[in-house]
């Protein structure tokens, strides 16, 4: 009985080599790369497309695919003889931003791409490509916040409303230009990249154990999940194993992160609909989960807990007992608050049919995380590609297909219940074993790591040299996928006053995108 990946590769005439049970690698020529990936994407999902450039070597393109019913991943790569390749975008719309990124960061031209333009480097010199190791002279860049974004629509009665990059309240920096005919949002032009810190470039040449601290700062509120994906990529590359106790601790902390994020998300939705008591109640829940995280790991955002091959911290029986008591309290309060929210018409009516992403559209862009699951995409790497201790716990993947803000609220609320359920099971069967304290044995290689962050799947690909230094780190956090569809969600028949609801319902990180 062949695995689905093997079957598909055979059909496509691709020779695959397996790296462990979970990653199949194939190489093909540049001339057939586009056709192979397009054909594969008919039955598999393109989850990432990235480039690797190094001086003195031919650039490499790598596509990461998920094949239906196979817990493994398929990586197809090709060497480019020059600095151009045939764009996938005309056949495969979801490749659009990946290809724009490849051009911007690496200077590799996707020939035939219909909509090239900067993603992160707005007013930068032409032909400057940060991932090629080029450095700009210091000093401020020519920048004008008011003229840089050009509206993509115009006409009689259409006016523009700029928002950002410095926005109201303590929020992340991003720029939105609303085109409106009065009340309705006709179009949103968004500009991200204000927070571009070149995190992947900074990692190059550093020991993987130090890059963990960079990965933790990729995005504050999905610190643990992104770092877990990165750490697993390193561990899979060098063949390190993790003890069951540490696997349990990783799973527990990942779910704790989901808890505080989802409490925060519902709190922001309540804020957008003016329910101040609900804001306070969910704010308290979030703060309590953060405090629990601080107590368990020494850091409210769970930083410094992961290391290659295990965990830096031990969850003592006393900690676990206390967490169990808190869990009961949180689930009870969350259930009550959820009931109250569902009975509050001013809340539900604002969310109903707001910013609808239909399932067809969601599939076309392969949306990830709760946003995708609210538009009928039944995917969750915790279930489809089990890691850490997820194969030893029972949980459901809540999916609805309405695709509006209310559906996103329902999915987040249901995921909260599942997270609480997972943590309860973990605490019930904690494997208190001795942990081997072997330092990692470094070897050259590359591998993919993954984790389900609060916002969706985080994929991290890493290439190491024989001393454990990072040669290339590719981070594909969930926000990179979901921002692509944000403007469309805003424009689909919504009013300007819906905007806070839309942004809150997406619960999407700017830092994750900007990197």
């Amino acid at each position: 009985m062949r695995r689905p990946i093997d079957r598909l590769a055979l059909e496509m005439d691709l020779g695959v080599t397996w790296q462990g049970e979970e990653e199949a690698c194939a190489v093909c020529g540049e001339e057939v790369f586009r056709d192979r990936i397009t054909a594969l994407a008919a039955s598999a999902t393109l989850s990432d497309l990235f480039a690797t450039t190094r001086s003195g070597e031919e650039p490499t393109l790598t596509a990461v695919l998920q094949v239906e019913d196979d817990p493994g991943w398929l990586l197809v790569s090709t060497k480019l003889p020059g600095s151009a390749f045939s764009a996938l975008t005309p056949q495969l719309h979801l490749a659009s931003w990946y290809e724009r990124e490849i051009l911007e960061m690496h200077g590799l031209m996707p020939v035939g791409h219909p909509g090239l333009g900067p993603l992160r480097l707005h007013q930068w010199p032409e032909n400057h490509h940060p991932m090629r190791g080029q450095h700009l002279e210091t000093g401020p860049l020519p920048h004008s916040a008011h003229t840089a974004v050009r509206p993509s629509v115009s006409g009689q009665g259409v006016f523009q409303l700029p928002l950002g990059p410095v926005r109201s309240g303590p929020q992340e920096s991003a720029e939105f230009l609303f085109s409106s005919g009065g009340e309705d949002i006709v179009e949103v032009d968004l500009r991200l990249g204000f927070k571009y810190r070149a995190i992947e470039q900074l990692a190059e040449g550093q020991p993987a154990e130090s890059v963990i601290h960079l990965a933790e700062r990729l995005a504050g509120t999905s610190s643990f999940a992104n770092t877990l994906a990165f750490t697993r990529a390193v561990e899979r590359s060098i063949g390190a194993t993790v003890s069951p106790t540490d696997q349990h601790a990783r799973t527990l902390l990942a779910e704790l992160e989901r808890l505080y994020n989802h409490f925060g998300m519902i709190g922001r939705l309540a804020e957008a609909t003016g329910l101040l008591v609900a804001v306070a109640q969910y704010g308290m829940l979030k703060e309590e989960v953060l405090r629990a995280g601080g107590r368990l790991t020494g850091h409210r955002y769970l930083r410094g807990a992961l290391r290659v091959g295990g965990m830096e911290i031990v969850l003592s029986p006393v900690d676990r007992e206390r967490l169990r008591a808190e869990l009961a309290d949180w689930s009870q309060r969350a259930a009550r608050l959820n009931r109250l929210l569902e009975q509050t018409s001013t809340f539900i009516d604002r969310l109903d049919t707001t910013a609808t992403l239909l399932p067809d559209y969601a599939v076309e862009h392969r949306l990830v995380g709760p946003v995708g699951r609210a538009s009928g995409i039944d995917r969750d790497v915790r279930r489809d590609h089990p890691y850490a201790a997820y194969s030893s716990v029972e949980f459901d993947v809540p999916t609805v297909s309405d695709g509006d803000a209310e559906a996103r609220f329902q999915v987040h609320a249901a995921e909260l219940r599942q997270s609480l359920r997972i943590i309860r099971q973990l605490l019930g069967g904690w494997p208190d074993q001795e942990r081997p304290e072997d330092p990692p044995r470094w070897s050259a290689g590359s591998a993919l790591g993954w984790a389900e962050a609060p916002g969706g799947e985080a994929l991290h690909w890493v290439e190491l040299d024989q001393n454990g230094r990072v040669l290339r780190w590719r981070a594909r956090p969930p926000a990179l996928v979901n921002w692509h569809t944000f403007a469309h969600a805003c424009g689909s028949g919504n009013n300007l006053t819906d905007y806070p609801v839309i942004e809150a319902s997406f619960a999407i990180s700017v830092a994750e995108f900007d990197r």
Partner: protein
Amino acid sequence: MSRWIAKGLATGLRTTRFPDSGVSGEEQAPSAVRLRWQGLSPGQALQAASLCPTAAIEASGTEEAGELRFDAGACILCGRCTRQFPQAFTRVADPRVAVQSRDHLRSTLRWGAGQKPAPASLSAAASAVQLAAQHLFRRSLHIRHVDAGSCNGCESELQMLSAPYADLHRLGLFFTPTPRHADVLLVTGVVTRNMEEPLRETYQAMPQPKLVIAAGACAISCGSFAGGPMTAGPLDRLLQVDAYVPGCPPTPQAILHGLLLALGRATERYRADQEESGGA
């Protein structure tokens, strides 16, 4: 709607008594790292420097004669030094860690040839602008926050300031959407090159007198991103800073302390190399 009101009333008061009284055990969170020089031999000092993933611990020289520089403003609380040398590096659980001078976050130890320099004086002299601002803002203060390239950890903690546990409004502190109404510019993040100009424009749009607070290791020292190709910061290279709040991210209570410190309503308690303080 009445049910929400009932729910709110039934919950009762959950707000911290900070800063009027100390912080309770529940509110304590690792806020910064403090160094006890006595707990560290020269060899260990050199080893500690090699552990640090940022520029928070830097050493030069040999075991016979050398120097160790500790900068709590660059510390991201990764826990490497506190795990390896718990006798020398400890996590401070008291969130009152904000300081008015960048130097108060630094400490230098010399061995062999030199001696440890005398600790800096504890009282920082407030500038004329600060005094004027403190007098004007003593009852009510409006804060304009700018994310100049953070990971969103700091924003998450700033949002928690409005939650019932910290509740900054009771202290007369408010976030304002417009810089025209703002008295304090609260900056988080490394200041990326893309954010440098929007940050300046925001600062210039604020009326005089105005205060600037650097919150978090990134704003203070660029933290993990120091020397990065897209980094224009740290903040005090671009603007004059009135208070520094260390942490990665700084806890809500630490940010409150930073705001009150800039206003002259709180005093400094933290020193990078202070002996254990007298408690809460």
